[in-house]
């Protein structure tokens, strides 16, 4: 199977930059998988887990991301995450901290649109909390 260049960057560092065959991305409109020769796509992300399959069918590398963008173009896939943490370093406590931050964010949010967005964020985090642990 063909592989394609994949990059995962957070504002603080470049986490992954390698050729992979399959990546599952938590898009805001639903999860989607990216294989080589995917049509150009730009999507926002919801808080969730990115799964990176170096070769299809192998054990995936899992990373928690909190919001950001995925950019699929003929040169490969780039994920710009607001925050990205490898799952090995991630635990319930970190998630709880994220939920708490989101709650604060919601209470501080001004304006309808921002509030709705913050609420959505919070709900997704809570869902993840219920599902993962």
């Amino acid at each position: 199977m063909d592989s394609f260049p994949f990059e995962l960057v957070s504002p603080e560092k470049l986490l992954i930059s390698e050729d992979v065959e399959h990546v599952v991305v938590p898009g805001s409109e639903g999860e989607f998988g990216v294989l080589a020769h995917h049509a150009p796509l730009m999507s926002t992300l919801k808080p969730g887990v990115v799964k990176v399959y170096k070769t299809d069918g192998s054990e995936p590398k899992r990373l928690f991301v909190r919001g950001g963008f995925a950019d699929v173009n003929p040169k490969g896939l780039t994920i710009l995450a607001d925050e990205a943490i490898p799952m090995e370093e991630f635990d319930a406590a970190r998630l709880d901290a994220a939920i708490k931050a989101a709650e604060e964010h919601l209470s501080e949010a001004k304006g309808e649109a921002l509030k709705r967005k913050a609420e959505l964020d919070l709900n997704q985090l809570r869902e993840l909390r219920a599902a993962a642990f």
Partner: protein
Amino acid sequence: MASLKDLRNRIASVKATQKITKAMQMVAAAKLRRAEMAAAAARPYAERMERVLANLASSMKDAPGAPRLLAGTGEDKRHLLVVMTADRGLAGGFNSSIARLAREHARKLIAEGKEIRILCVGRKGADILRRQFPGKLDDIISLREVKSINFGTASGISERVLEEFREGKFDVATMFYSKFKSVVSQTPTAQQIVPAEIPADQTGDLLEGAVYEYEPSEEEILEDLLPKNVAIQVFKGLLENAASEQGARMSAMDNATRNAGDMIKKLSLVYNRTRQAQITKELIEIISGAEAL
């Protein structure tokens, strides 16, 4: 002429100062390495972001209803100057060169009849600019308590700027910081952050005629991406500034240490001469005393 005791005291005090400057130089060198690494680690994100934004914005910029963060408010009257400096001095010309650039920019704007307001990040810039533009200084954000600059620090600052923009308090925001080139060279830089300055589209032929799909819509993505871009630019500015500050301090302290060394050498020479002159004088007194008998 200074007595021997005075000279001894002078030498001791210069030596003590030299020890301090030497220590500061070494601390700055260690911090510089860390700051440089942080700045380098943040670069990939900023680059990718620029690419994504360029590619999105090229199609949106002139469309009616483009987000105001991209198209601007349509006016160019009220300016916000975000001046980033250090919280501490003793860094050579670091703080004053940034303040100078901001001051020139502000004077030019005032001469053109525009309104300005200044937001200072870091105390030192505020100290300088407060005197020259009384009443224009909006607020000072001190980073003294911040141990290491992370994205949270930057998004806090950018959120403040964005909120004022949403409330319609300014039309254009410009950020002043020092770009880190090397230990001996940092360039004060002005960068417009609101409305966003979009670099020329580099992805023109990349898609080979294919059309992007957007999830959700193009507008919504852009709406999300633009504030983030401001935060990222601020983040970049802060990190570059932190590296520049340490670089400037390191070379300033290196100079100070060397100057102290020169001074000690000169003072020791004077000290030795005076001491010998005194011995000679005493000898002459003894000998002429003996001859007189």
